[in-house]
């Protein structure tokens, strides 16, 4: 499929598959609204379908009926391979040139030099913890969610930690092992041979004994921190910000092992019914104001450097807090494939899916 040659008039509608908190119209907090203005300006009425995992996003796009998706790195290339998204003509997006150079040709959305989207925001998976429990001794390592131990409040971490309910969490285990068991020779947490993979699963089995429940939905994790006595978990800055805004005793840490993370791309469906509105949104999404607002709201980093300065909501320290300068330490989500780069053969994603279900099920 060819990329769009020129822009026409808006079609009046636009539907987007997005992560929770990515597309806000002021419902939750009046100050966070980057949709209403866009609708007024372009006449494109925006509807949003939130998805909780990358797999869900791929499934929704496969099903069709949507224009745009804010796909993470573990979904984007699958969408390209499945011919669900179309090439983007960056010439039609004036703000393209303002995009962070680190992201402009990123491999998770650029195939053979063709861009299949525009970057949205990116960020790390942080370690969220309860400040009352950790009493001024923030956890420095992911070990609080991987190994049984007593927390600073004297009680065991058993039943009080959580992990992400998505197969990609295997990469977090691999990332932990990369640091603590260098002898396994893991080069990338997304490229694991059988032995490395098995070690990661073993680690996750230990974790299963510690975790009462896995978190699947950001909002439910927020609930669990409030009502279920959960005190530490891998999380997104979004939840951290939300809980802090409710005056809950939580904070987040960027542990010594480094973290996985996400760099999301706004991609356009092959059969989009509203391509003009979609291009208008992509342009809108790259404006420094929107980038700053999203970053502030979600706890992410903008893909446009200008957003780090002068945004009221993000403040001038915001980018630093959210890890803007740790770009290189973050291992962004990718889709594990059999033919991997770092070694001869890797365990492909479908095994991650079924094995992770097994691990959670107690296998």
């Amino acid at each position, binding site marked *: 499929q060819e990329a769009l040659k020129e822009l026409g008039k808006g079609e009046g509608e636009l539907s987007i598959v997005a992560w929770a908190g990515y597309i806000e119209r002021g419902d939750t907090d009046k100050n966070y609204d980057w949709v209403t203005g866009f609708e007024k300006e372009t006449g494109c009425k925006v509807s949003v379908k939130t998805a909780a995992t990358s797999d869900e996003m791929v499934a929704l796009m*496969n099903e069709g009926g949507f224009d745009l998706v804010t796909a993470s790195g573990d979904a984007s290339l699958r969408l390209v391979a499945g011919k669900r998204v179309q090439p983007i003509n960056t010439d039609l997006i004036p703000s393209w040139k303002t995009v962070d150079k680190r992201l402009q040709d990123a491999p998770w959305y650029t195939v053979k030099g063709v861009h299949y989207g525009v970057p949205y925001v990116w960020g790390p998976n942080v370690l969220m913890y309860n400040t009352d429990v950790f009493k001024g001794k923030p956890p420095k390592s992911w070990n609080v969610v991987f190994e049984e131990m007593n927390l600073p409040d004297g009680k065991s971490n058993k039943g009080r930690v959580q992990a992400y309910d998505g197969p990609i969490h295997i990469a977090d285990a691999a990332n932990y092992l990369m640091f603590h068991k260098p002898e396994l020779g893991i080069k990338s947490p997304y490229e694991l041979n059988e032995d490395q993979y098995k070690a990661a699963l073993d680690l996750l089995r230990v974790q299963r004994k510690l975790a009462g429940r896995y978190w699947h939905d950001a909002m439910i994790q927020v609930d669990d921190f409030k009502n*279920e006595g959960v005190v530490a978990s891998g999380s997104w800055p979004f939840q951290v910000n939300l809980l802090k805004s409710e005056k809950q005793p939580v904070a987040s840490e960027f542990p010594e092992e480094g973290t996985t993370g996400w760099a999301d791309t706004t991609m356009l469906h092959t059969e989009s019914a509203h391509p003009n509105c979609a291009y208008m949104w992509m342009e809108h999404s790259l404006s420094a104001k929107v980038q700053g607002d999203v970053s502030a709201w979600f706890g992410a980093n903008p893909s446009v450097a200008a957003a780090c300065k002068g945004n009221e909501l993000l403040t001038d320290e915001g980018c630093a807090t959210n890890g803007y300068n740790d770009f290189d330490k973050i291992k962004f989500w990718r889709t594990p494939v059999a033919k991997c780069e770092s070694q001869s053969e890797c365990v*492909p994603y*479908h095994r991650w899916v079924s094995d992770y279900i097994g691990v959670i099920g107690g296998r």
Partner: protein
Amino acid sequence: MSAITGEQAILIEKPGLAGRISDFFWKHPHVFLAVMLAPPLLWLGIIYLGSLLALLLQSFFSIDDYSGLVNYEFTLSTYGQLLNEANLDIIIRTVSMAAIVTLFSALIAFPIAYYAARYARGKWKAIFYLGVMLPLWSSYLVKIYAWKLILAKEGILTWFLAKLNLLWLLDAWLSIPVIGGNSLSVSYTGTFIVFVYVWMPFMILPIQASLERVPANLIEASSDLGSTPQQTFRHVLFPLALPGIVAGSIFTFSLTLGDYIIPQIIGSSRLFIGQAVYAQQGTAGNIPLAAAFTVVPIVIMGLYLWMARKMGAFDAL
């Protein structure tokens, strides 16, 4: 009234469309039957069963792991996948849960149905009926969330038990392996309680109906022949109420078998069949595996319905 009427014994055919249609159908009862049955049969037999068969067909396809697109070639590999250890766990977990939920639903429902059928009269009968129907029709989702509040670690049950100095009881329960856990809301116990709560009302009405159909004189006959009330219950009342219990259990069993919302909200993240289907279909986009998973409840419920029909449970539905 005159003695002998002047009219003909056989009246001439009535003119008019209605009359002619009536005559036609009267003369061709099979056509009439066909006309009556066509709409429901087209709907249920073609649309519904057709969709079901099409779904089953999908289970013989496979999915491309990387792109998530269905590969339309006949294969049994999806069934191979269905039978891997993790998925078997899911099936066993779900079926056991459905069985236990059904058993306890029957145990809790029976006294209510029994009282309503045999002792409640007049106003009380209406109160019992409403008492069963209201929970049945009040929002399923909101009820589940109410239970989340009750069962949460820092929830209402804990609050009450703390007031009563009974927290040790809860802790003792939660420390039991398998059914225990960190809190009720992340344990099988919690999932079980909510399942029973939500589906149990479906059990009451069929049991009540079948109990009401037991003629009073059978109870008297039993007593007359020397049965104590307990013996009468065991030898007469219970066997005769059994079709009602089976009818009710069609609901409790099937609804538990397919639900994916309850175990996701109240549970330990271990999947149930409904969640697996939902995840494979919606999250992973693996329609063939989802379809293969649905075969499990279809087969189970097929057998169940067959047995229920033999027991005459359909009349009690």
